[in-house]
């Protein structure tokens, strides 16, 4: 989230799209409801009328996988009708930048495409620059080469009729949503967009989010109270795990992942540090060397940081998604791994193409499962259709303790690191993840010491001083994540002693004199103590006006509650909307939130994390294009793409040997997957909780009355869903909440199935995981699987029979 949960109440128009917030983030509705009480309009765009739609003022149905068509049309609508916030767009976005002569877009492809590698040469999308390398601009936005004009031309194809034909959304609904939301393009109006996996889990997932971010920039909705781009995170601490590098493309604090092509630490820093000669740009990533050096010292305090860098694993010179989830399972499926740790995961139920994952696990020699309970993955060797005798994989199960049994921080969607203390002791032989990982590591280290081994330094030298009385101590790690001075240092006349906690990331040093495990967490555990444990509601009147509680927990970065807040004020520091100012310059200092850098008004541009300081309407950094473009999902009811001759994202992650259903009469219905409020993730915990299971006991398939009539299925009967990859049998919920779509003049039926159930949930269950149906295709930037849309057949189950 650029903003935070409480801030939702400040919004005038809330667009929930790609999320069933009421269902999956029940507490969000505490604040959505507050906004509605103030008279805000709630819009829900979704293929299915859900618990969220039930509370919405406007519900608009959309065929899964066509979000960019809808957003592209909205961009065109905003540009055609001059509904954008002109001052914001000119001053704070790259709308005025001149795009270079090599940029082109033809037949669904951007310039620079190499069909052999299925990738783009992104240099072709560069801006025109002056002799210092600063991009040329036309603040009048009239130059045909400027970004705004390039966007006009790009989205000219996304006219109302096309949007209606491709998305299946009725014309009146399209206009109602567009007009309501575009009305927030005024300084005194705030619109927010809430999304979740419904935007991400697509082969165009990243570009979906780019598109909605562009809309927010056009309307001046970023950096203000009640605005922003707000990802609702699906696990209580998934924000925190992302921050400390759960993903394959970065190191903690979103530092780039080391690559083998970079010879040494200096090459890494050079490659990762953007350079600009624009004096107005803060270009925050120019500090990368301080954060990288401090990370090396956090891991290897006794070593020189440049040496420590050589000990880190490096990825090959290939697409980063080759290290992502789908690629790992492809490699495992092909016998590419001997062993695996399946840690707090359930790939045989929660992972896309779960049937393939089950077969992949059977190719391993060993597997270690760390979890609270046995689940479909730890038990895959005796799952449906598997004869344990045929499985060679040796499975070890390490019982983990639960979140309420350990101390630590949980980072919520609004980036608040909230410390909590354990409420119960570990049960039985279970241990915290920290204890398990340290014990395992020390055993490995002992073996290296005793027997030697290849590349021993990273193992022998890693610092693991996080124990207290022999047990893992979360506070010790939290202190290291904040950062510590390793030598006496003087910063701006203030003396710091070795061993003291750094006050924030501005104190981190590039020479190895500080250790910090995650620079964005710096400031969370200082000499003043554990800032994450604060529960003080004190606030200034300015903060009270927008529900900002700076003394409650700690928000990264720098306790800033609303990101890019310098974009919410004009060049003189005056808030565009004084009634709900996030920050304001009072003549001497900033009041309100922590500003994005303390410079005086107008001194620096607001989007400090991008090289040139302005919001990127045109984004040359993504691997699949500088502007979002609609491509059909890999599996689709259409044979082609109505927007261009290029059917699917040409750079998407997929495995050519796997069949896809494209306008395939065997699989005529669009299917999407989702969650229910009563179950959590793959259900491994909640399916064991009787009260929750009682409320939502089984897998089900929601379908329209029209489709049910066609199939002869009655509400509550069992149906079989079948895709290219597998089949599942579930209960049919026949409902008016799903309606057939009219797409390109034809009727398209869509069905939906929650993925949180599996064969392990109850005795004699015939039900299995929805992910047996979903495909192994993914976004080219992140590798996230396209589990939100694929094609299935649905038929009535034979009474008393399975399948």
């Amino acid at each position, binding site marked *: 989230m650029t903003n935070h949960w409480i801030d939702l109440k400040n919004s005038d128009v809330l667009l929930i799209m790609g999320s069933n917030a009421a269902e999956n983030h029940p507490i969000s509705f*505490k604040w959505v409801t507050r906004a509605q009480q103030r008279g805000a309009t709630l819009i829900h765009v979704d293929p299915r009328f859900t618990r969220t739609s039930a509370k919405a003022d406007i519900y608009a149905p959309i065929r899964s996988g066509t979000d960019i068509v809808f957003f592209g049309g909205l961009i065109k609508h905003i540009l055609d009708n001059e509904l954008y916030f002109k001052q914001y767009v000119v001053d704070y976005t790259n709308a005025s930048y001149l795009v270079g002569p090599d940029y082109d877009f033809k037949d669904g492809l951007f310039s620079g495409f190499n069909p052999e590698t299925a990738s783009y040469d992104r240099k072709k999308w560069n801006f025109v620059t002056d002799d210092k390398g600063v991009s040329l601009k036309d603040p009048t936005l009239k130059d045909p080469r400027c970004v705004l004009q390039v966007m006009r031309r790009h989205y000219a194809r996304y006219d109302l009729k096309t949007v209606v034909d491709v998305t299946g959304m009725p014309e009146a609904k399209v206009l109602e949503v567009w007009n309501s939301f575009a009305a927030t393009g005024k300084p005194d109006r705030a619109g927010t967009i809430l999304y979740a996996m419904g935007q991400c889990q697509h082969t165009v997932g990243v570009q979906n989010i780019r598109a909605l971010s562009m809309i927010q920039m056009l309307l001046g909705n970023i950096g203000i109270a009640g605005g922003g781009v707000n990802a609702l995170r699906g696990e209580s601490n998934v924000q925190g795990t992302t921050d400390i590098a759960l993903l394959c493309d970065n190191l903690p604090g979103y530092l780039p992942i080391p690559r083998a092509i970079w010879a040494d630490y200096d090459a890494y820093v050079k490659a990762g540090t953007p350079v600009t000669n624009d004096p107005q740009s803060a270009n925050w990533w120019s500090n990368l060397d301080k954060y990288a050096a401090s990370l090396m010292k956090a891991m290897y305090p006794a070593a020189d940081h440049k040496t420590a860098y050589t000990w880190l694993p490096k990825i090959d010179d290939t697409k980063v998604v080759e290290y992502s989830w789908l690629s790992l399972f492809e490699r495992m499926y092909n016998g590419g791994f001997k062993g695996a740790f399946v840690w707090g995961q359930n790939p045989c139920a929660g992972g896309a193409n779960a049937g393939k994952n089950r077969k992949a696990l059977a190719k391993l020699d060993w597997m270690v499962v760390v979890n609270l309970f046995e689940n479909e993955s730890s038990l895959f060797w005796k799952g449906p259709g598997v004869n344990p005798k045929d499985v060679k994989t040796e499975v070890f199960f390490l019982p983990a303790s639960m979140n309420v049994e350990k101390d630590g921080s949980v980072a919520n969607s609004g980036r608040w690191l909230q410390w909590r203390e354990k409420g119960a002791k570990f049960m039985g032989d279970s241990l915290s993840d920290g204890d398990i990982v340290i014990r395992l590591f020390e055993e490995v280290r002992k073996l290296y010491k005793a027997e030697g081994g290849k590349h021993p330094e990273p193992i022998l030298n890693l610092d693991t001083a996080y124990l207290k009385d022999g047990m893992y101590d979360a506070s010790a790690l939290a202190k290291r994540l904040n950062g510590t001075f390793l030598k006496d240092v003087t910063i701006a006349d203030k003396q710091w002693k070795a061993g003291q906690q750094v006050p924030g990331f501005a104190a981190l040093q590039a020479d190895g004199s500080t250790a910090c495990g995650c620079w964005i967490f710096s400031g969370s555990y200082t000499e003043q103590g554990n800032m994450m444990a604060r529960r003080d509601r004190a606030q200034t009147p300015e903060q009270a006006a927008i529900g900002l509680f700076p003394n409650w927990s700690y928000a990264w970065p720098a306790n800033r509650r609303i990101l890019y807040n310098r974009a919410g004020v004009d060049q003189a520091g005056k808030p565009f909307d004084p009634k709900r100012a996030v920050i304001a310059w009072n003549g001497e200092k900033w009041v309100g939130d922590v500003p994005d850098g303390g410079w005086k008004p107008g001194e620096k541009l607001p989007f400090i994390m991008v090289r040139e300081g302005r919001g990127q309407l045109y984004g040359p950094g993504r691997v699949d294009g500088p502007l979002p473009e609609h491509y059909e999902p890999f599996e689709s009811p259409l044979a082609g793409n109505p927007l261009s001759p290029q059917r699917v994202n040409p750079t998407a992650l997929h495995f050519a040997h796997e069949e896809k259903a494209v306008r395939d009469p065997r699989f005529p219905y669009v299917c999407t997957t989702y969650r229910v409020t009563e179950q959590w993730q793959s259900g491994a915990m909640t399916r064991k909780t009787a009260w929750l299971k009682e409320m939502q006991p089984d897998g089900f398939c929601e379908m329209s009355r029209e489709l049910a009539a066609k199939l002869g299925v009655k509400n509550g009967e069992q149906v079989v869903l079948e895709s290219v990859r597998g089949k599942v049998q579930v209960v049919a919920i026949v409902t008016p909440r799903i309606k057939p779509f009219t797409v390109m003049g034809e009727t398209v039926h869509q069905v939906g199935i929650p993925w949180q159930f599996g064969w392990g949930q109850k005795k004699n269950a015939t039900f299995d995981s929805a992910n047996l149906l979903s495909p192994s295709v993914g976004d080219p930037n992140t590798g996230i699987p396209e589990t939100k849309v694929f094609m299935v057949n649905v038929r009535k189950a034979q009474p008393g029979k399975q399948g």
Partner: protein
Amino acid sequence: MSENKGKTFFIDQTRCTACRGCQAACKQWKKLAADETVNTGSYQNPPDLNGHTFKLVRFNEVEVDGKLKWVFFPEQCRHCLEPPCKMMADAFIPGAIIQDEATGAVLYTEKTKDLDYQTIREACPYDIPRKEESTGLLTKCNMCIDRVRAGMLPACVKTCPTYTMHFGDRDEMLAIARARLAEVQKKSPAALLADSDLVRVLYLCEVHPSHYHHHMVADAGSAGDRIGPFSRRALLAMRPLRTG
């Protein structure tokens, strides 16, 4: 007890998202058993109130003025001001069903196991009482009387994330319920507070009460519903003679 004393719930159904936090919280606080249910083609589960389900969120898909609505009804005992179940029980076993002096909560005691289940259930204008087979007791929501006496909110109210559930002194609840009703009526003129002069659980209905459940309001009293010479509703509205 005077009609404006004691405690009351205000349940603003325009806000309910059917998260069912209340349904789970009720079972958790009261340590009530869960059944091995099956999906019957609805999110509503268990399908009905039962001896160990005192709070049930009902889901209904209805069309109102050509618009699809999914309405949610977090149902529980209404704690009638003049409870017909108690009147009926008093005729057989006085003290089996009692009314708490301070709060007005209608409480079922151990003695309910000797009452005739069908008679008591039929006396209720809202069809609330159930029999718990494992103990033989008649059961229903007891306003979390243990929590309320300890100065706490009922478990379901405490849990609700959306400001649907409110609990407090009756005059205060009536005031906020009426204020909220006026607000909702601006958009939905048909909105009403169901039976607010008869019960301690004020349900704000945005659409016609029958869309939520046929027992959202007390039975008007068809011939079949009659209990002796009175309809259930007449019984409910009956005021015992009072002095002072």
